[in-house]
């Protein structure tokens, strides 16, 4: 259990966040310069915030109102840096043992051996960091951070320096880590997919604040605002006004396109007349040949071939000058349903996948 409240003001940036982690993996997602790493460094005690409160399990690490500020060495927090920050003059084994020097020699040997096995580093004990691959370096960094049995593990963009194959393997390693490390984990990243795979909850950062912190499925299903929607990958955003709210559905008037219906999940604050943005992920846009409910008309303007599908951009036919574009992802096996460039088709937007974003 970790509780964090931090305030820190710099010349052109201010951090003001509050969140908690309860034995789970929390992903901190946001663009660079949004204060993600600063948050980790504050928790680790390497940066002192102007004011704040940090409680880790039953210990208060920082409480500015009571002038408590434990130094880094007393916090029992494991931190893995983006560039791993291994000790270049120590072997892999010595790196891992660094944090447990105060234990007996036998205990150290035992603990190091356990970690070397768990991290798949057998045979590399005597190598120096420069003799290890990036993936191996990271496993050493993880083992080193885990050796003192920290109550929380902080991972600062742990995969950004790696190629995609190594990255995939190490993600598995972190998922496997959960089998023997039961503490809290905070993972800082700017990659949504990575945060989604590895964490159970995600906090979205923007310029020093948290704009949404939710269960990952909920974050994707109902982004709190447009910024979150853009970060979580909604490309098809249409402006509209709510004209009716029922128990099960919400109808939204989109200028010049007509009425679209969305399934109502847990939107308690919605009411008629609110202006909203509706969004739908490209993979849920369906191409059909007949008009109907929740269906718009448009022409195919461009096709981009991706690794696992085709991305089709449709320009919607609106009566006047408003320019709407929708894109749909068609899997390679469905190639035959892709119309020819420039042809007019109907696009069905299933109500269950339409997401209503309030402003």
């Amino acid at each position, binding site marked *: 259990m970790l509780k964090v409240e931090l305030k820190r003001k710099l010349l052109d940036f201010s951090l003001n966040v509050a969140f908690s982690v309860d034995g789970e993996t929390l992903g901190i997602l946001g663009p660079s310069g949004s204060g993600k790493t600063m948050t980790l*460094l504050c928790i*680790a*005690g*390497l940066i002192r915030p102007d004011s704040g409160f940090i409680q880790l399990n039953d210990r208060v690490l920082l409480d500015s109102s009571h002038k408590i500020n434990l*130094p*880094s*060495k*007393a*916090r*029992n*927090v*494991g*931190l893995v*840096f983006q*560039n791993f*920050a*291994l*000790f*270049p*003059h120590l072997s892999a084994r010595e790196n891992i043992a*660094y*944090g447990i020097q*105060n234990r007996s020699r036998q205990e150290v040997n035992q603990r190091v051996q356990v970690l070397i096995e768990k991290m798949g580093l057998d045979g590399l004990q005597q190598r*120096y*960091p*420069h*003799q290890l691959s990036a993936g191996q370096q990271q496993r050493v960094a993880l083992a*080193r*951070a885990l*050796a*003192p049995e920290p109550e929380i593990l902080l991972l600062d963009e742990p995969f950004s320096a790696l190629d995609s194959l190594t990255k995939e393997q190490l993600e598995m390693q972190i998922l496997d880590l959960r089998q023997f490390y039961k503490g809290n984990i905070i993972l800082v990243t700017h990659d949504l997919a990575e945060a989604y795979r590895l964490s159970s909850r995600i906090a979205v950062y923007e310029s020093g604040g948290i704009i949404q912190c939710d269960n990952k499925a909920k974050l994707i299903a109902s982004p709190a605002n447009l910024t979150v929607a853009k970060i979580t990958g909604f490309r098809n955003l249409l402006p509209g006004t709510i004209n009716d709210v029922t128990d099960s559905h919400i109808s939204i008037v989109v200028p010049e396109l007509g009425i679209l219906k969305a399934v109502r999940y847990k939107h308690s604050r919605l009411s008629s007349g609110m202006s909203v943005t509706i969004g739908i992920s490209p993979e849920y846009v369906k191409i059909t040949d007949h008009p109907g409910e929740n269906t718009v008309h448009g022409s195919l303007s461009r096709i981009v071939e991706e690794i696992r599908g085709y991305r089709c951009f449709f320009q919607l036919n609106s009566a006047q000058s408003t320019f709407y574009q929708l894109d749909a992802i068609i899997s390679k096996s469905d190639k035959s349903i892709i119309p020819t460039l420039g042809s007019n088709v109907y696009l069905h937007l299933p109500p269950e996948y339409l997401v209503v974003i309030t402003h």
Partner: protein
Amino acid sequence: MNEYLAPLWISLKTVLVATVITFVLGIAAARWMSRYTGKLKPLIDSAFILPLVLPPTVVGFGLLLLMGKHGWVGKFLSLFNTTVVFSWPATVITAAVMAFPLMYMTTRGAFEQVDKNIEDAARTLGASEWRVLYSVTLPMAWPGVVAGTILCFARSLGEFGATLMLAGNIPGKTTTIPVAIYFAIQDGDMKQAVYLMVIVLCIAFASLAALAFLKKPKPRTRGLLVNAAPTDILYAGRKKDNPS
């Protein structure tokens, strides 16, 4: 023969003691200043480097004023009925003062090149500041520290002007090699002068060469000068090897 050897013996004693003193003080000052962020930083920094740019005679004169009968240190020492002026410790003091900026600057440069994340990693692993210094910062900055020490050694060995001001020329007591050479030439004793010159040449060349051969066959990570010969850092550009 013995009076020929006396300056060598005095110089060696002086240089060794002065190098040990500057080694410790230089590292302490470098550590302090590489982390100090107060407003006085430029002033303190300049004060530490000052002896390097002042004429040695000015430093010697300053020390003489400070340690003479009417100076603060001189008055304090006279309470114990001692004085350092024109005594052997004066040669050590001047050599240390003149060599200190070299140790301080080189070591500080090396400390500032150490990736701060690596020191921070040690802190999160429970290391005290003291342990961070001796187990991470110093080993990683070692080539710079060694380079600073060599420079100190060389500078102390060659110290002349300030030494003459504070320690004078008392044969067998304060006459170091450079002072002896100067007075030997004044007295027309070319044999003694050449003899001492060759000794100094040998010592200086041998110590530099020995250290250049002492390449540590140890790790070299991206861009860090860990594997470099201690003398390499003297030529290395300050910032170009900064990893990030």
